[in-house]
Structures are given as structure tokens and as C-alpha cells.
């Protein structure tokens, strides 16, 4: 069955430190993958997407993600975290038929001053 897994429920990093949030997927073919961010009381904002082509994708707010087929991973990275990055992050995907997104359980990011 198609699935998206985020192994880390909660991560705390210091401001200015680098960040990597993990995401693993299970799809038969190459999926379309996304990272979204959700601040408290808000909807989801799209950070970046992978459809095909270059496996390193750049997004908004200084985020990037790398698609690694061999590891079935699509990890989100940022070289230097800001306090305003504290939020819930969701990895999601759908198959080549499109339609409904399958979401990971989310990773809550806390940023220490």
C-alpha cells in the first residue's frame, strides 16, 4: 500500500543550527512528493515539490529537499534555522494518477534560542 512515513514526531534544534527532517515513502512508481508547513491555527503552506528531474529541489524560506530513490527518502533540509521556523512539518505524496495526498504523521519542530 502507498504510504508516507515521518519517523520523528518532535525535533528540537538551536537557532542557527542546520536541520534535516526525515521522510520515507512507499510507492510502486516514482511518486509526486511535497513538504508542507503548518503554523498553529493555520492551514498548510507548500514549501516545495518533487515531480521528476533534478533530485535536489529548492523551496521557499530557504528549504530544500533531496529525492533518493535508493533509500525511498525525501528529506527536508535547511542550513540555518530561524526561530520563525518553529512549526509542524508534513511530508506528503501521491502516485502518478494524482488525486488525494497521503500524509505522514508530521514532525513538530521546536527552535531553541
Amino acid at each position: 500500500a502507498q504510504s508516507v512515513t515521518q519517523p520523528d514526531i518532535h525535533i528540537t534544534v538551536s537557532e542557527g543550527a542546520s536541520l534535516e527532517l526525515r521522510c520515507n515513502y512507499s510507492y510502486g512508481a516514482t511518486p509526486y512528493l511535497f513538504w508542507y508547513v503548518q503554523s498553529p491555527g493555520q492551514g498548510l503552506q507548500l514549501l516545495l515539490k518533487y515531480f521528476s528531474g533534478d533530485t535536489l529541489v529548492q523551496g521557499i524560506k530557504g528549504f530544500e529537499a533531496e529525492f533518493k530513490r535508493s533509500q525511498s527518502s525525501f528529506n527536508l533540509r535547511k542550513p540555518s534555522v530561524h526561530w520563525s521556523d518553529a512549526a509542524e512539518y508534513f511530508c506528503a505524496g501521491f502516485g502518478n494518477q494524482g488525486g488525494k495526498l497521503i500524509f505522514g504523521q508530521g514532525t513538530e519542530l521546536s527552535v531553541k534560542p
Partner: protein
Amino acid sequence: GAGVSQSPSNKVTEKGKDVELRCDPISGHTALYWYRQRLGQGLEFLIYFQGNSAPDKSGLPSDRFSAERTGESVSTLTIQRTQQEDSAVYLCASSLGSNQPQHFGDGTRLSIL
């Protein structure tokens, strides 16, 4: 407005009552989705509309849940005879097509007393 608009933003109702949630998608977006987000959990797919095709209702949890969409505009999600387990944030998203990035509204927080 430029984004997906949902109303009401908050709804408190008594168990057994019917509720209706509204979603205004981004203009020109042919696809519209409803998701449910229970406290501390990821997003569950509920229903998906694509143009004039029959909707994908595979995520609706029971026959108390239904949704309609008029053409490529407003959608309403109706929950009949609400139960306490229906308490959640209901998120609507729209996209240009079924395999395009989905853009989310801020959600309706539903509380069943």
C-alpha cells in the same frame, strides 16, 4: 481573495446536530479536496472533486458525511447527527489539476459537545 477560503473558522455544536462547512477554492482550480485533521495526527483524505467527474468518496468515514460541489466553485461538507469523534479541523484544498500541488485553506475547527 487569492487563496482557499473556508467558513466558518470555528464551529461548536451539540452532539446529534447537523453541520455544514463551506470551501471557496482558488479561482480556476478544477480539483477540490477535503481532509480531516484530528488532534495530534496527520491529515486524512475525505473526498475529492475533479471537474465534472464523479467524486472520489473513498475517504468518507461513514454515511453521515457527504459533500457537494457546484461546478468548479464552492463546495460544502455536511456532517449529519454529529458525534464527539467528529471533532477535528476540516481542511479544504484546491489545485489546477489532479496531479498539481494542492493549496490549503486555514480550516474549520469543529468541536462537538
